């Protein structure tokens, strides 16, 4: 570095850290875009659901409420796990943070697995993507959510590996924070979709 440049560098005023980091803004933009995409799907579902005199249509199976309620509990149980991972990372406990993220990934995988088994049962009962607006709206809406859960699980596994390698510690937890935010979004979205599709 030349002498004038070095002098300018030393004279540069200290810039305070922004109150919202670029990573947080980027994650907020992603989540806003995802919410609008799901809003479109929910709007289409509402259109089909509200104009139907009988729901589910005649000859179509009812959606499995009991096992899906249990599945909801499994997904919600992953929230304390990921919160614990974040608290452990802030306390400098790398092993606890990796364990919490891995536990959340396992619970998320269990959620997708149970849902996949239920889908196979529904298909065997005659409810497929081509079963009119009932099957189409159900599989597209719930399938999009399942796809997001899978992406979040992959995110969790990457972050868990990063934590084990030392990429997340008591001073730097941005990847784990962003993963936690995305996981909250996925769980919160399910808490909207479950009553709308299964209970309403």
């Amino acid at each position, binding site marked *: 570095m030349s002498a004038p440049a070095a002098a300018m560098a030393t004279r540069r005023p200290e810039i*305070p850290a922004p*109150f*919202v980091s670029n990573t947080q803004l980027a994650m*907020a933009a992603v989540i*806003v875009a995802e*919410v*609008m995409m799901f*809003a*479109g799907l*929910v*709007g*289409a579902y*509402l*259109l*089909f*659901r*509200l*104009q139907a*005199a009988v729901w589910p249509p005649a000859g179509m199976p009812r959606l499995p409420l009991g096992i899906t309620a249990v599945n909801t509990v499994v997904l919600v149980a992953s929230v304390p796990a990921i919160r614990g991972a974040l608290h452990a990372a802030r306390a400098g406990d790398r092993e606890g943070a990796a364990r919490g993220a891995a536990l959340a990934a396992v619970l998320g995988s269990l959620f997708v697995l149970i849902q996949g088994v239920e889908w196979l049962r529904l298909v065997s009962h005659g409810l497929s993507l081509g079963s009119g607006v009932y099957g189409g709206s159900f599989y597209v809406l719930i399938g999009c959510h399942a796809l997001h859960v899978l992406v979040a699980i992959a995110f969790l596994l990457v972050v868990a590996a990063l934590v084990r390698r030392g990429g997340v510690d008591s001073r730097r937890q941005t990847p784990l924070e962003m993963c936690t935010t995305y996981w909250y979004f996925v769980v919160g979205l399910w808490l909207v979709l479950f009553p709308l599709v299964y209970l309403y």
Partner: protein
Amino acid sequence: MSHVVASFVVAIAASLLPATRAFAQGCAMCGNSLAPNDPATGAMNASIVFLLLMPYALLATVGGWLYLRYRHSGPRPRGSVIALPWTRAAARPGSGPQED
């Protein structure tokens, strides 16, 4: 500054005046294809209202989040005021970098 506010108010008023006759119009496809007593009409209206409200709900949520983050970020040092040509006369000495 008062000129800017006055221009803004006049522009808003001028843009609203010719719009009064357009309030009763709607989408040609939706308006003509749905009968008044059709259950699809209520479903369409509910769906439209839901989709209409979502961007505002998101805007309020993100705006509230940013506001709370800003409020909880504590006192922040303000940047120095740059003296522009039309504010240079009013700028106090030492309040910011001078151009000359």
